[in-house]
């Protein structure tokens, strides 16, 4: 985290002030936004003519990202899988699921999965069909921060398997999607939401050539680009939203307050910061959404809410180490040598009691909290806060829905 956003030069006193204003109800944000308000952004798609889909998003703070999507036809490995091998290949997934769910439930899920596959002409998909690379200027691509970012982004895209399912051509071939995510400005704030929104838009605008062949033949495509098809079909939009690519939102908490799209200054005082990935799927039955919730690889609990037409579902929640943890603590006046005259009583007292007072003051600064004195937050996120965050995101008319609606308005080129 620290490495991917530049260090802030805020004094402990400034941090303490910021923290206290953000803790107010309602919070007072430095740029005057409400807690759920996003920074203004500009977005456009189709900026790279040679790609299958592309998008550019600029935040008002000057950060800017470009995402290009390229697709290639690839032969699916071991095309002639017998059902037994098939079972074997699915083992790891199931095992993981079993760890989370009770045995019966896993068995039930398995049954259902089998049914679904039979019905869907064995449309299976693999995570390798999506390759994602993130480039942050000034950082190596094996920098831990960059790797973490790309892991989070791909986790969100792959979690529900919807995207890779769309890449299925037939039992022998699939599309391989290369996502190139580039931050083209210096990382002024934590770029995760920017990159995620740009990726979302790029995928929305991604089109694949129309398939002409049938069945398991070697695929042949229509050479007319105008007849290519969006992978996220917009046939019936916007009245009935079909599925859209997942997005990852950055949320932080200060005290009891939940703040969306934090700026870098705000992040510097976060008690905790979370990256929450939300996906959307077509209308499904209650039972299945419950199962989907089981899939979540999240550190926290998960809920799912069924909406009238589309389902927003939580795909993952990741804790992000906020820079606030690395800030230097403020020094209470009690132990501040510079504030000597104000705190100490008699001028001519001996040195020993002063020393004792200093040690107690230091301890107080490290352990207890002193009003108006900055202290780096410690400990994990509180469960209650996390559930508040998730609720705010997923609820009807909540933040996720609003963001998706907003991105939906971007014209696709």
């Amino acid at each position, binding site marked *: 985290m620290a490495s991917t956003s530049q260090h802030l030069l805020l004094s402990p006193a400034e941090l303490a002030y910021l923290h206290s204003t953000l803790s107010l109800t309602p919070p007072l944000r430095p740029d005057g936004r409400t807690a759920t308000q996003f920074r203004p952004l500009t977005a456009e798609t189709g900026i790279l003519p040679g790609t299958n889909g592309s998008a550019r998003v600029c935040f008002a703070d000057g950060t800017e990202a470009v995402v290009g999507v390229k697709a290639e036809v690839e032969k699916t490995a071991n095309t002639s899988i017998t059902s037994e091998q098939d079972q074997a290949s699915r083992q790891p997934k199931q095992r993981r699921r079993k760890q989370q769910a009770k045995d019966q439930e896993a068995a039930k899920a398995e049954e259902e999965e089998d049914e679904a596959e039979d019905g869907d002409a064995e449309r299976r998909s693999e995570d390798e069909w999506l390759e994602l690379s993130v480039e942050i200027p000034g950082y190596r691509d094996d920098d831990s921060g960059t790797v973490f970012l790309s892991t989070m982004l791909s986790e969100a895209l792959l979690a529900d398997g919807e995207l890779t399912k769309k890449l299925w051509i037939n039992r022998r071939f699939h599309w391989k999607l290369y996502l190139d995510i580039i931050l083209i400005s210096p990382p002024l704030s934590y770029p995760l939401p920017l990159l995620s929104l740009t990726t979302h838009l790029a995928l929305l605008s991604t089109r694949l050539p129309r398939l002409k062949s*049938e069945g398991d033949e*070697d695929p042949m495509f229509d050479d007319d680009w105008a007849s290519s098809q969006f992978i996220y079909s917009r046939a019936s939009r916007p009245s009935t939203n079909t599925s859209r690519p997942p997005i990852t939102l950055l949320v932080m908490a200060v005290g009891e307050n939940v703040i969306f799209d934090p700026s870098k200054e705000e992040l510097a005082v976060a008690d905790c910061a979370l990256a929450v990935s939300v996906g959307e799927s077509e209308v499904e039955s209650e039972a299945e959404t419950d199962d989907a919730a089981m899939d979540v690889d999240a550190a926290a609990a998960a809920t799912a809410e069924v909406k009238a037409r589309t389902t927003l579902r939580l795909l993952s929640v990741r804790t992000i180490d906020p820079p606030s943890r690395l800030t230097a603590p403020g020094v209470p006046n009690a132990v501040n040598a510079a504030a000597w005259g104000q705190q100490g009583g008699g001028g001519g007292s001996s040195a020993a009691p002063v020393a004792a007072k200093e040690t107690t003051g230091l301890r107080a600064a490290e352990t207890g909290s002193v009003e108006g004195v900055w202290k780096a937050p410690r400990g994990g996120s509180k469960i209650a806060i996390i559930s508040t965050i998730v609720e705010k995101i997923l609820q009807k008319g909540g933040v996720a829905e609003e963001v998706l609606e*907003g991105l939906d308005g971007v014209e696709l080129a």
Partner: protein
Amino acid sequence: MQGRSLSEVASNRFVSKAELNVNFGGMRTDQCGPLTAATAILDTLNSKLPKNFNSSTVIETSTMTSLKRSVNTDPLSSNLSSKVYVRSTKSGKVQKIVREVYLRQDIPCSSRLCSNCLASAPRSAAGVVSPFVLSDRPAGTKAYPQGHYLVPDTNALLNAMDLFEQGSAFFDVIILQTVLEELRNRSLPLYNRLIGLTKSQEKRFYVFFNEFRLETYVNREQDESINDRNDRAVRRAVKWYNDHLGQTKSKSIPVTVMLSDDRGNLEKAKQENVPGIRLRDYVSGLKDAERLLDMIAESQERVTSKEKKTEFFYPEYFSLSKMMTGVKSGMLHQGMFNVSPYNYLEGSIKVPAFPKPLIILGRDNINRSVDGDVVVVEVLPQDQWKAPSTKIIEEEAITKNENADNDEGAVDVVTEKERRALQEEVKKTQGQTTEGRPQPTAKVVGVIKRNWRQYVGHVDPSSVSQTARQGRKQESVFLIPMDKKIPKIRIRTRQAGELLGNRILVTIDSWDRESRHPVGHFVRSLGELETKAAETEALLLEYDVQYRPFPKTVLDCLPKEGHDWKVPASTDDPGWKDREDLRGLLICSIDPVGCQDIDDALHAKPLPNGNYEVGVHIADVSHFVKPANAMDMEASIRGTTVYLVDKRIDMLPMLLGTDLCSLKPYVERYAFSVLWELSPSADIVDVRFTKSVIKSREAFSYEQAQLRIDDASQQDDLTNGMRTLLMLSKKLKQKRMDAGALSLSSPEVKVQMESETSDPIDVKTKELLDTNSLVEEFMLLANISVARKIYEVFPQTAILRRHGAPPKTNFDELANQLKVKRGLELRFDSSKALADSLDACVAEGEPFFNTLVRIMATRCMMSAEYFCAGTQSFPEFRHYGLASEIYTHFTSPIRRYADLVAHRQLAAAIGYEAMHPAVRARGRLEAVCKNINVRHRNAQLAGRASVAYYVGQSLKGRVAEEDAFVMRIFSNGFVVLVPRFGIEGLIRLRDLAEPEPESVFDAEEYVLRLSGSYETSVELFQKVRVRIRDVKDEATGKRGAKMELVRAV
């Protein structure tokens, strides 16, 4: 980041990752839209935002520069557009391709009326504007009396390319780039023909690059199909031409007219006030309209009738992707479709997966394939496997009285007659011999590539109605192609009466599922049947021999001195550089009588050490034909000189072939010499190659040379040299025979002509003298020596000739026949074994039997082919027939292009000259080899066909009774070979007697026993007496040598 530009970063990423064409990197910085562009985009963005969006997420206009290029708003972008399409590569990659189009305004209209374009037209590096093409006073018609330019659309060209090639009409044609590109996608052969037309001066065809001219470029609209867009582009271009020419100050401004067959397009043109006319209507207004109308392809007329018919004769083809998948996975097989010459309902296809060709039996399994097509087949289940036919089935006989007009009405694709013909056949598949054993059969499921060409034939008189013979009604008639393997072609014509009895040229347009026969159209008439001119031209067309006179560009490559060219007298002349002066050697040439293009000459002289110096001197054609000039291109296309009985179609212009290159006697000539030192036992002691100057002392014919050698009184050095050569050649031949060289045979005859009228008067089999073999041996020796040398220096690119060992199965049948009939054993495990066992195949008192076996054995062989050394491994180089491990052609550069290439390579190998890139590039050489292999075979076939025709002509009005041998037996006839004339003939049982004699065919013993109306038995290899007469079949109008069995001997 500071140091690198944005585009650099982005392009590096995308290109390296996906290997796809990302134009991002190529973006010009000045094209990045100015602020206005960005604002405009964002305005549209905002207007699309839903109302409830404002509360939390705001997309607002910032001062950021947009990266996106917007055609609408960027004032600089009016001359910039792009084309987007999907490209699928062979390896299975699917790429989105974006091509930028930079529109310009200086592309000229090329009309001589226009002075504006002339001023602004782009100039070449030399400052010259290419001359304008379209006439300032184009021809007018009734509809356009002020003159007109034509703009055909793609369909017009597809349907009526033959019309555009007419010399009487269709001048001043504007070919739009849109149309040209579309045509290339639809039909490459037609595209090439069109390109040829645009190069011709007199036709005045101009290619207008409308897609690059700002005013005529059209953007594809939302939801507009590519076809509609292209049609619109054509209309726009026509409109522009009319507007543009309207601005000229000329008194009579020609109309630019769109030619189309698309009703929708014409209607739109009418609405937009663009002059347009239906192709048919236009042609109707021309002179000679009836003949021209026949040249419009059939297909488009059928559109109307299609709707009412839902009945299909043939199964549908698989989709291309399905076929490709099947071929890749081995479920289907791809190969070239060949029709049996004896049975038009039986075809075969050789595929790599099976040792023997797959058999395709019956009309619905053949499924509209024509001989030569590349097709995909599916193997039928084993219970449907059949033996190859033992019956002659000729299309003419079976489908004789079909009515061309009623073709569609028939219920089933397989007529009752055809079914009966095939039925009898199936009964006889129980035999146990190799011939009778069921073989895998297959059915055609799709055609990858049609290899349709133009076919020569004649109209089936029985298909022409009486009314049409007089009237001018359009009707369908059948054309019977000369090539028996090609099915009847249905053509619609108004001139059926006139075409009767003529050789005519047609093309096949299509073969739809609902049509029993392919549909074609008339191209031109070659003249009356059996006139020499028509028949010769028919032959040349049928074998695709390029017979037009050499174009001027080729003749320009000849030496300026013409026939006065001489070897420079001074040895300081550059022509003498690195040439050896061999004028002192006693060189002579030995060729057939009357040979004008003398390729080779020889000499021999004893050396002091008891060895002999032997030289083979070959005409130095490569001195005159420089690589990659027009003459070289023409020669590489022609590939070989074609010898017909009365005509020679040269590969090189006469001046070179018969004079400057030809090693004529008594004059000095440039040559390329191979000089050996041979020991008295004809072993090579040393060999060297050099360019030289020689002076041949004498040009002998084989007979003259033989006489001179045999005449003991002649003791001059020249004759003694020839005796030495003869002595050595016999030793060389013995060595070759010991190594296993085959002496094969084909029936060769010579037609003697009356010198005045050049009418054939007699046919003679060619005689072989010792001197023939003398020349042959030294040519072989030279070829082998040269092959070794060029392979040593250019192991990748050397042009060589190989003769593959025939697959063992090819001989199975012949071996069995010999065993059953004569108790002879044919061994074919090596060429040596084969040669020996062929020698043993003699029948007492019948010298011709051996030749017959050799002829039949030759037909089991593979054909020799040219190839590029790098394409095969060394063991594959072997020449089976000559039993040589390496071989090439070097000794006839005047008449074979391969030899010319070998000359150039050898010259480079000995350091005489640098290797020209064209001779070095392997890809090009492979293409050359492929072409000359085809040309070589065609030339042979054309030569044979010519002989056959003249043999027939020499029999005209005569009846000859000759000996013949039975070569092949069917259940309802047999094939005989007449050695005297070198022709084969088919004797059908039904012709022997009336009613047709009953027959029992014993496939195991190869005997056909006849009873009933004609009692005899005919067996394989039997000598029979036949009567040959020249008969004209009244039904088909075809003349041919007809044979009748007189008696079995």
